[in-house]
């Protein structure tokens, strides 16, 4: 049994960690949190140059052509560093959708630029509050143009292209949905930046006023392609969440070792010790479920859908748990702007909803387990 990342993949992980420790310390994250820049441009460019963005993009399309396992270890390090860049939109979603469903022309045109970071992509699917369902997708596609609005769109203000879930046939069902690629720098697009809980990842409302769009994949395939894209992204984002959870746990542990009260390190009090132990349990369960997600993604396993849902539920809970209790271990200091605790808290709660929340994914998990059992 070799249920582990290879030595080369571990080395890549260490390389990414060193790179991010140098180019993305928390001061860089804070610069985006507090400043006017929507993302860290220099870091983004560097990630492109290092080949990290193109890790799972085939060489013929400008990527490094490594694979999903490599992308997973990179994702974990990005999550650990809270990297304020649009990797999850551009690479985990848009590049993956183009790989899966784009025609040759679309792949040749966009994948190399996504791999280098020259182009930023994002997925625009949400219109209403609550889960995305075929019945609440109203944005319409007609004669190669889109009319309607999407909100919120993660990285919507900084993206150059968007893949949009739109309705090509009237009605409320899934059969009427397709995916479209839209270049966002055109007159038919109006973008408004939104205030969010995690300003290190910007979000926008995008209004489409007869914006030019081209079909991605077959007409009517939109909902299926969308759900499959979410599954892949759930695993990759899951690694971001695992990285963040581990870092929050370490922060809490390190603080508990050096903070003294009542004559001893607070980590020697069982209430704190046990709180950190429970965080370790959450993080460990999530990591192990993550390994299965990585396996499923890299082998195209029939269990991918189940693995994705398991990992999403597990990593979401672990990151939220570790981030909120990291604040608790820090006491009053954990609630200050100056301490980094709230950065992890904000990110954990953004990632908890960014691909749809627990209520949706718990549903998917149970449905998928039933389907598996029935088979």
């Amino acid at each position, binding site marked *: 049994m070799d249920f582990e990342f290879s030595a080369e993949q571990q080395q890549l992980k260490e390389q990414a960690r060193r790179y991010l420790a140098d180019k993305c310390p928390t001061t860089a994250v804070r610069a985006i949190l507090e400043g006017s820049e929507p993302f860290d441009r220099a870091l983004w460019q560097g990630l492109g140059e290092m080949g990290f963005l193109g890790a799972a993009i085939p060489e013929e399309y400008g990527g490094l052509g490594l694979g999903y396992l490599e992308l997973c270890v990179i994702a974990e390090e990005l999550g650990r560093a809270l990297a304020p860049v649009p990797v999850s939109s551009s690479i985990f979603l848009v590049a993956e959708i183009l790989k899966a469903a784009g025609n040759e022309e679309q792949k040749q045109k966009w994948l190399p630029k996504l791999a280098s970071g020259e182009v930023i992509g994002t997925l625009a699917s949400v219109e209403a509050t609550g889960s995305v369902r075929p019945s609440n997708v109203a944005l319409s596609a007609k004669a190669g143009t889109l009319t309607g609005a999407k909100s919120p769109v993660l990285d919507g203000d900084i993206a150059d292209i968007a893949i949009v879930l739109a309705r090509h046939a009237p009605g409320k069902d899934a059969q009427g949905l397709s995916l479209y690629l839209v270049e966002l720098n055109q007159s038919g697009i109006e973008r408004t930046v939104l205030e969010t809980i995690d300003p290190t990842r910007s979000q926008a409302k995008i209004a489409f006023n007869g914006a030019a769009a081209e079909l991605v994949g077959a007409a009517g395939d939109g909902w299926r392609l969308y759900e499959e894209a979410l599954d892949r992204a759930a695993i990759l984002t899951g690694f971001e969440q695992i990285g963040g959870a581990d870092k929050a746990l370490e922060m809490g542990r390190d603080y508990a070792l050096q903070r003294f009260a009542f004559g001893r390190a607070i980590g020697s009090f069982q209430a704190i010790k046990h709180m950190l132990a*429970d965080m370790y349990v959450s993080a460990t369960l999530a990591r192990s479920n993550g390994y299965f997600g990585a396996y499923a993604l890299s082998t195209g396993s029939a269990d991918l859908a189940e693995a994705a849902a398991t990992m999403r539920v597990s990593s979401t809970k672990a990151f939220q748990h570790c981030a909120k209790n990291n604040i608790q271990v820090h006491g009053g200091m954990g609630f200050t702007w100056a301490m980094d605790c709230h950065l992890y808290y904000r990110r954990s709660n953004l990632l908890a909803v960014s691909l749809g929340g627990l209520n949706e994914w718990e549903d998917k998990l149970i449905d998928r387990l039933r389907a598996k059992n029935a088979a």
Partner: protein
Amino acid sequence: MNFDDTPHEAAFRAEARAWIDANAPKHLLPHLEKAGFGGIELGGLDPMKEAKAWQKKKYDAGWACLHWPKEYGGRGASPIERVIWNQEEGPYAALSGSFIIGHGMCGPTVMDWGPEEAKRELLPRLAAGEDIWCQLFSEPAGGSDLAGLRTKAERDGDDWVINGQKIWTSGAHYSQWGILITRTDPDVPKHKGLTMFFLRMDTPGVRIVPIKQANGQSGFNEVYFDNVRIPDKQRLGGVGEGWKVSLTTLMNERLSIGSGMSAGFPDIFEFCKELELADGTLAINDRGVRSKLAEWACRQSGLKYTGMRAISALSRGENPGPENSIGKLVAGSSLQEIAMFALDLQGQAGAVSDPKLAAMAAKFQAQLLRSPATRVEGGTDEILRNIIGERVLGLPDDMRADKGVPFNKIPTA
């Protein structure tokens, strides 16, 4: 990142599988697959007799206690081979419940610390299932503070004379031998004054009293020692080295991974797929039920894949990482939560525990009544959290009021 055997592992697995297919007691399979809490039931056959028969058969063919050296009854198998054997043995392993302590804890301790003569005589019998061993460690006054034990051993010529009491001794009532930790010097701090022995359970002065458990069953015992004589050649390790010896015992407990503990998800999932709620919908379609099921599914899956990461380490010839310490901690409370939830779904009928009447043969009722023990035995949830905090996360030890204090000066109730 795969689940494949190496060529060597595949060959070993094929050999194990072929032997099991040709030799296992297949007529017992329907009963073994239903094995739940509180032992196995073989439709009228004597479980102990069947267990010993299977164990002897394995021993004669070289498949008992695989990882033990050949001269002690094993075949010198590697840790990964042992895991593969366990996977292949599957449901038949349920027959070996009575041997787990002897094979997993007592045998390795005797092997590491016992005199050669005794090892050659006793270990093969233990491997063959001819002798059953128990572990005499815990005491009424000790609790999780194992080193605070009071059973004393006093030297008298070539013998030691033992007086005291042990508790929670699983299987003492059917064991032939036991390993016993005693206090030989009360004037030094508690860890330094301990010595380990092994003895026959029918030695004069040993009195075994079964304990009735909260769930009505009786698997463990009190064991009283009234001037029991043990020859010095039955000592394991040096005088005063007992704590070091006991760490071997406890460490081996932790190294047994591969099968892993279930956190109880499969049963509650099955149950919810069938159960109709008040409004006619199936429980599995209820949002609240699904949310809880998802949590337990993720724990079950997380434990399974944590176990596989550990097996991968063994396959590489490395020690499993610290992540394995989470198993019982997660499983124990999950089993209890699931049992309570299942009874809740059954409504007032949830209180009925007759297997002929209650859903799923009253499995959840049995689980409800047994699960409190899972959170205590083999290390309480609180001790496990301490171990994770201290050994895995590196947090400072709890403050101890008895550190460095001679045993006979430590405050007690």
